[in-house]
C-alpha cells in the first residue's frame, strides 16, 4: 500500500494540505493553469504577480544553463509581472478561491508607488486571497520603481510593507531578492514595516550564456539581450544559505519563511523545511516537467517521514539549523582517510588525476594493476570520493587525529548516494 502521510502544515495561521505551492511566475498565470495545478495536488498557488503596470514581454525570453549532457541545471527567464489587465486577474483569483475553497490562494502584488501598493492590497483581499506576497524582487522589471531595485533598498521595503499590511487584514509576505549581500537587512526592514513573513529567494541576476555568433547574451532578442533572473537547481545552494542565515538571525528566528529556489524533488523540499521553511514554492521544475511533479514530492516526502519517524512536518521545521555553525566552531582535530574498494574500482584513474591536479598528490597510480593507492600525503579532503564515478567505490575510512589532539568520538557520513 502506498504510504500517505499527513503533510498538512500551518503557515501564517492558514492550514495548507501540503506545503507545496506554485510560486508567482509563468506557471500560475491564469485560472486554467492554477486549477490544473490544484487538481494535480498542489497545496496552494501564488498567483502570478499582478500590478497596475502591465508587462510588455520580449521574445524569446528564456535560456537554460547546462553542463555536459544535462540541460536545465539552471534557467534564465526575462518575464516580468502579469501581462494581463488587473481586473481580469482579480476575476480569475476570485473564481479560483470559490472553486477551490480548501486550497490556499496567495496573491502576489507589485506596485510602483504607495498608492498602487495600497490599492493592490485592497483589491486582492477583496478578490478572496488568503494572503499577500509583496514582490520586492523581480530582477528584470522595465521600471526601476519596481522589483529588485526596491528589494535592495530597506527603506522602501519597510515603507511598502507597512502600506500593504495596513491596507489588508490578511497575512503579508515580503519576497526577497538574492541580489544583495545580506538578506537579513531588507528582511528585518519588512518585518519592522509590518510584514508577517519572508519568502526567499527570487531569481538571481544572471547572464547564462553568450551567443558567440551575435555577441550578446542568451536569449537573443533582435540582436541584444539583458541581465535577468536565474532559477532552478543551480540556485538551491544559494537559496538555502540565505534562508539559514535569516533563520539564525536573532531578529528573524521566529519569523515564518516560505522557501524557494531550485526545489525539484521531495528531498529538496525536506532540506528547505529542515532549514526552517513552513511553506515551499516551485516554478522552474514545473516549467521543465509539469505540475505532475508534485505527486513524487508528496509520495517521496511521506516515505521519508515514515522512514525517519516524523509524524508531522512541524517536527521537521528548522531541525537542521543548530547543526549549521560558524566555520571557526568546526571540529578540526582529525582527518578521515578515504578507503578505495579495488573490486569496485574500474581503473579510470580520475581520483588520481584530481588528487594530483586539484588536491594533495596523495594518490599513487599503479600502472600495472590500473588502480589508485592512497599515500601518506592524504589530508582527508575527500575530493577523490567526490570525483569517483563508481557507486560505493571510495568511502570514508579511518579517522586519524592530528598530532597533539585528544582522540574522541566523531560523527561522520558513511553512505553516499
Amino acid at each position, binding site marked *: 500500500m502506498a504510504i500517505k502521510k499527513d503533510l498538512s502544515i500551518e503557515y501564517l495561521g492558514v492550514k495548507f494540505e501540503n506545503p507545496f505551492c506554485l510560486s508567482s511566475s509563468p506557471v500560475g498565470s491564469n485560472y486554467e493553469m492554477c486549477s490544473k495545478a490544484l487538481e494535480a495536488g498542489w497545496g496552494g498557488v501564488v498567483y502570478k504577480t499582478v500590478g497596475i503596470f502591465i508587462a510588455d514581454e520580449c521574445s524569446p525570453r528564456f535560456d537554460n544553463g547546462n553542463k*555536459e*549532457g*544535462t540541460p536545465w541545471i539552471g534557467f534564465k527567464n526575462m518575464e516580468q509581472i502579469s501581462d494581463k489587465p488587473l481586473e481580469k486577474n482579480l476575476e480569475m483569483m476570485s473564481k479560483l478561491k470559490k472553486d477551490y475553497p480548501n486550497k490556499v490562494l496567495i496573491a502576489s502584488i507589485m506596485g510602483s508607488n504607495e498608492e498602487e501598493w495600497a490599492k493592490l492590497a485592497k483589491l486582492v483581499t477583496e478578490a478572496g486571497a488568503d494572503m499577500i506576497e509583496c514582490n520586492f524582487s523581480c530582477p528584470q522589471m522595465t521600471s526601476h520603481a519596481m522589483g529588485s531595485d526596491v528589494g535592495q533598498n530597506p527603506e522602501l521595503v519597510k515603507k511598502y510593507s507597512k502600506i500593504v499590511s495596513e491596507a489588508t487584514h490578511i497575512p503579508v509576505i515580503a519576497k526577497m531578492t538574492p541580489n544583495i549581500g545580506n538578506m537579513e537587512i531588507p528582511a528585518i526592514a519588512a518585518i519592522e514595516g509590518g510584514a508577517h513573513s519572508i519568502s526567499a529567494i527570487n531569481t538571481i541576476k544572471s547572464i547564462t550564456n553568450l551567443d558567440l555568433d551575435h555577441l550578446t547574451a542568451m536569449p537573443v532578442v533582435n540582436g541584444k539581450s539583458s541581465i535577468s533572473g536565474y532559477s532552478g537547481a543551480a540556485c538551491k545552494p544559494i537559496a538555502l544559505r540565505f534562508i539559514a542565515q535569516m533563520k539564525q538571525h536573532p531578529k528573524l528566528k521566529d519569523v515564518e519563511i516560505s522557501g524557494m529556489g531550485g526545489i525539484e524533488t521531495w528531498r529538496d523540499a525536506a532540506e528547505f523545511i529542515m532549514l526552517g521553511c513552513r511553506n515551499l514554492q516551485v516554478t522552474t521544475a514545473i516549467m521543465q516537467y509539469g505540475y505532475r511533479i508534485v505527486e513524487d514530492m508528496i509520495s517521496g516526502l511521506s516515505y521519508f517521514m515514515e522512514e525517519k519517524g516524523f509524524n508531522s512536518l512541524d517536527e521537521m521545521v528548522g531541525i537542521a539549523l543548530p547543526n549549521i555553525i560558524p566555520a571557526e566552531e568546526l571540529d578540526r582535530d582529525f582527518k578521515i582517510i578515504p578507503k578505495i574498494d579495488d573490486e569496485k*574500482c*574500474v*581503473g*579510470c*584513474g*580520475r581520483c*588520481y*588525476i584530481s588528487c594530483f591536479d586539484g588536491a594533495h598528490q596523495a594518490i599513487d*597510480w599503479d*600502472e600495472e594493476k*590500473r588502480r589508485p593507492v592512497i599515500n601518506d600525503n592524504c589530508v582527508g579532503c575527500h575530493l577523490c570520493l567526490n570525483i569517483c*564515478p*563508481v557507486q560505493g567505490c571510495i568511502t570514508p575510512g579511518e579517522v586519524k587525529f592530528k598530532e597533539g589532539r585528544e582522540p574522541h568520538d566523531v560523527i561522520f557520513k558513511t553512505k553516499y548516494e
Partner: protein
Amino acid sequence: METKQKYLTEAVPSFTPRTAMEEAARCLLCHDAPCSKACPAGTNPGKFIRSIRFRNIKGAAETIRENNVLGGICARVCPYDKLCEEACSRTGIDRPIQIGRLQRYVTDQEKAFGMKILKAVEATKEKVACIGSGPASLAAAAGLALKGYKVTVFEEKEKAGGFLTYGIIPSRLPQSVVDEEVQYIKDLGVEFKFNCKVGKDITIEELRKEGYAAFFLATGTQLPKTIDIPGVDLDGVTTAVDFLAAAKPNNGDIEVGENVVVIGGGDVAMDCATTARLLGAKKVTVLYRRTQEEMPANKEELKFAQSLGVNFAYTFRPGEILGKDGKVVAITGEGTDGESKIQLKADKVIFAIGQKADDLKEIVADIELNEKNLVVADEEADCKTNIPYIFAAGDVVNGGKTVVHAVAAGKVAVDSIDEYLTSIREIEATDKEVAAEKEGAR
C-alpha cells in the same frame, strides 16, 4: 523504409551534437585511456572524446584525422567490441562508450565544417607506386604523399577502395564515405591509375624505368575460397566476393534469390546475409561450423542480421549442394557432433569462408611467398619483402584481417619506405660528394 532503401542507408543513425555530448559525458576520461592503447592504428579516443566533452569538435577531428586518413571509414567498420570498446573502463559500471559512433560523429562534423586537416605538401621526393587501392594502400599513399613523395596508386578495377567499395554493405559503409576519403587522398596529391593491373597492363620493371623508386604491394586477397563438396559448380552457387562485388556498385540492383544460404561466420558472411535479406531474399540462413560464441563476426553486425530476421544454423558444416537441371535447390549440413543433419531449401548458396591472394608471381616473379601464397613480410615491423624496393602489407601479407589492421600496416609501410628511400638518397649524396672530390683531386 523499403528494404532496398535500408540497404543503401546507414543502419546506425548519426549522433546529433546533443546525443554526442551525452555519450561523451558518459566517458570517464580515464587517466590512462585503455581505449587508446587498444587501437591497432593508434587512434586516440581518450583524447578526441575529451575534446568532444570540452566542446572542441574541431580539435577532436584533428586528433582523428592526423592519425588516420580513413577515420570516417574506420569509424564505421572497425570491430570496436573487440578493440577500443572492449578496453573501455566504463564497461566496469555498465556498458562501454560508443567510441566508433562518436568517431563517426566527429568525422561527419569535420565534413560539415568543410575542414581540411591534412594539407598537401610539395612532392619533391621520389616516385612511389602503391599497388592495389584497399585500406592498406590508401593509408600508405596518404602517408607517403604527406612526406613529400610522388605517389601513384595502381588499381585494376574501376574504382578505388578494394573491399571497402566492392564488399562491405552500404548500410554499414555507404559508398559516399569511401569516395570522400579517396578524394581526400587525391587532394593530398596522390594519383590514381584505374583499370591498370600491375604485372599485366604494366610491369614493375617498366615502372622502375619510369622512375618509381619503391613499391608498396597491397593487393589484398581477392580470390574466394570454396570447399570442395559435391554441387559447388551448380548454377546459383557463388562466393561472397562475387556476390558483394555485384551488389554494391549496382546499388543493390541484382537478383538475390528467395532462399539464400550463406556459409561462414565472419563480417563478410554477415554482409552477405544482410545484403541478401535487404535486397529481397525471403529467407536467409547462415550456416556456421562453430558456435555463436566462437563466431568471429562483430557483435553489432550479428545483431543487425538478427534484427532483419536472418536465421543461424550453428555447428553445421556444409555437406553437399543438391541441384536440379543444373541449378541449386538445397544444401545439406552435417552437424559437428557427427550425428545431426539438416537440409535447407536454397536457390542461392554463398560461400563466405575467406579469400586467398591472387597469383603474386604475376606481379613480381621472384617475390618470396609462404605456403599460403602470401607475401613474406613483417607488417608490424617494417613491411619489407625479400626485394629491397618492394614493401608489402595488409591482407596480402596477413591473409585477411580488419580494415584498421590494414591502416595500421599501411602506416608502418610509410615509415619503412621513407627510411629506405632516405638512406638511398644519403648514400647517393655521399657518392656524389666522393666523386666530386675525386674530380677535384684530378
